[in-house]
């Protein structure tokens, strides 16, 4: 079949282009690794920065209790400048400044924060742990000499059993969060399939500039064969990208992808969307430079709006609604259903994605056909 041989030519061209191979295959892997290694395991404690240049004995007690607090993740700072910087950036929920004994401990909260309650509650919980013996001594000293009070208090502390806090949890952790690469692999795959699909538009524009398109009109069914082959090769490259990244995720990182009957159609339809989007872009822009100039920002913006760079659950409902104009958002919704809720085929999302795929493919073929016939 001539379509397949056209596809094969494009396929070979891709493999000869080492840079394209790098950005299509290696780059997503690098990003997944970085995300997984840098961000895995966060989110179960409040980050707090501690500044304690010269704590007294009481302060030391407080600091060790702070480290042991289950609700706080403590980072030590050497000066207020870095501490305040990280608080302003939102890297910390707040700061705790521990002066020498006798002065008040200061909880620093960000200027814009409306919700420092949890932080204060956790710190207050720690404060309570430190005072036990001192308060007992203080109360007793009103009645008996200091030394005797201290002796009694020490003995009491040693003998009275402590009140423990036991914990049990209900429900299960979402599968995506259980594995530090679990959400990075599907999201970055969606991002890079689209980004690389769009950048491939540049190569398409070059073919236009070289007049290859118009020449295909000379052969019988020439244009159809050429476009078919082109689309097939782009789709094939997207599938290769998916196979490598997902394969790596499952085999090396042991992530859970859910039921294959659910995610395979998802990846296939999304691959068609990316190939068609790239071909449509290639038909619209006029120079390879323009193609890259539009492809990269568009890939990033769609990736952001669609929830591949951060989950849409953290943004406002308005942004979430805007995001659902992108196919990425629907794809990420589908991944969530398939992986976290084990729901099998995500019917509604797949229907929407199918519509995207069909519309984009039709537009791409129409635009390229028009160019071949009219040169515009």
């Amino acid at each position, binding site marked *: 079949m001539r379509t397949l041989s056209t596809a094969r030519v494009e396929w070979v061209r891709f493999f000869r282009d080492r840079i394209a191979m790098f950005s299509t295959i290696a780059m997503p892997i690098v990003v997944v690794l970085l995300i997984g290694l*840098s961000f895995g395991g966060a989110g179960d404690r409040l980050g707090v920065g501690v500044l304690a240049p010269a704590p007294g004995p009481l302060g030391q007690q407080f600091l060790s209790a702070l480290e042991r607090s289950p609700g706080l993740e403590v980072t030590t700072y050497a000066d207020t400048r870095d501490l305040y910087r990280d608080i302003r950036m939102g890297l910390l929920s707040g700061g705790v400044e521990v002066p020498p004994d006798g002065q008040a401990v200061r909880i620093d909260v960000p200027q814009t924060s409306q919700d*420092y309650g949890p932080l204060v509650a956790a710190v207050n919980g720690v*404060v*309570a742990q430190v005072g036990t013996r001192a308060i007992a001594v*203080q109360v007793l000293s009103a009645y008996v000499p200091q030394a005797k009070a201290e002796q009694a208090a020490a003995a009491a502390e040693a003998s009275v059993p402590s009140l423990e806090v036991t914990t049990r949890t209900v429900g299960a952790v979402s599968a995506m969060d259980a594995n530090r690469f679990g959400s990075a692999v599907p999201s970055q795959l969606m991002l890079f399939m689209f980004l690389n699909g769009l950048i491939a538009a540049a190569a398409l524009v070059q073919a236009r500039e070289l007049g290859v398109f118009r020449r295909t009109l000379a052969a019988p069914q020439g244009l159809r064969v050429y476009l078919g082959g082109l689309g097939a090769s782009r789709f094939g490259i997207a599938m290769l990208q998916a196979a490598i990244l997902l394969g790596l995720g499952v085999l090396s990182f042991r992530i859970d992808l859910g039921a294959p009957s659910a995610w395979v159609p998802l990846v296939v339809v999304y691959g068609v969307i990316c190939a068609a989007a790239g071909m449509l872009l290639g038909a619209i822009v006029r120079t390879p430079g323009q193609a890259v100039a539009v492809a990269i920002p568009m890939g990033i913006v769609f990736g952001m709006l669609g929830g591949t760079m951060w989950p849409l659950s953290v943004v406002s409902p308005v942004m979430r609604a805007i995001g659902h104009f992108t196919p990425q958002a629907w794809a990420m919704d589908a991944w969530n259903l398939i992986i976290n809720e084990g729901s099998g085929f995500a019917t509604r999302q797949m229907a929407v994605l199918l519509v995207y795929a069909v519309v984009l493919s039709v537009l791409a073929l129409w635009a390229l056909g028009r160019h071949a016939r009219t040169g515009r």
Partner: protein
Amino acid sequence: MWRHVWLIARLGVRRSLRDRSILIMALVAPIAIAVVVGAAFGGGASVSATIGVANEDRSDISAQIAQSLTNAGGDGIAFATVSEPAQIDALLDAGTYDAVLVLPAGLGDAVLTGDAADLEVVGRAAEPLATSIAQSVAQGVAANLQTARVTAAAATTAGLPDVGAAVQKAVETQSPIAVDQGQVQGTFSVMAYFAPGMAMLFLFFVIGEGARSIVAERREGTLQRILAGPVSPSAVLLGKTAQVMIVGVVSMSVVWLITWLAFGASWGDPLGVFLVIVAAVAAIAGISLFITGIARTENQADALTTMVALLFAILGGTFFYGAAGPLVTMQKFTPNGQALAAFVELSAAQATVVEIAPRILLLLGIGIGMAAVGLLTMRNKVLA
């Protein structure tokens, strides 16, 4: 010669500004992306937890504890009484509470007798943060109760006449550690992080094209025409370098001014910001000239530019910040990472120009060094 340098630079700048794809990449893209990020995260991350208090014990002590907890809520944390302790699991599943603090039956008695006892926290696996906060609160409660018990035991040992009064006093005494709350003045705009990061990513492409124009003009013949006149090769090379510097500094400054003045995202002390912009552009220009110098064909230069731009952007922290681990080290080795660190110092740490001077000098050094190598190779290759 300097007149020729200026003429060549001026023509190059004019042609660049007329090129729509350059305008898109240098101005529209970074601003658009920064706006999207700003819209997504402008409100700042919020934490909130609703913690249920289940009193399975019917003593005065537990009633007192439950009362003080439900009064103690603050911004972002709320305590509510669980009406049906038997339904705790179901209520957690339904999301009515993020975690539940249980005062188990027999707690009050144990407190008075000095026996061992537990407080229980029940959390949702999907809400680890609320669970751990509830644990901290429970530890606080346990600590307060323990203070009373220890005081009681010590009072008994010391032979105090009225142990109850002593306990009461212990409960009323403030912790030796006083706690103050303060606000950290000054805000940080997420836009002010993403705008320069994205601007730098795209500048690699924009400046790359400018650097490559030296080779492109050789192919088109205009370079020879210039050299056939009374113009020295050095003037051409310096002119092109000036061209890319001007385009880079102007476009990044426009991104800065628009995100600052129109969207309220301050990047920090203006003098410092401008110097970092110049230094960052110098580094990017140097790398682009280096790439153009060592590449064998224009296509190779183009491809190398794309790869370097994306790699440096990802490693330099353009797409996310606040990471721990290997990323932090890698960031230091990219010009993007160094520049973003300087920008963060200016905007979030409210640093002065003097404090970021080392980074500025480092970026300038990279720029000048790589530009020198690139220009020298180009001089030999292109202008023979």
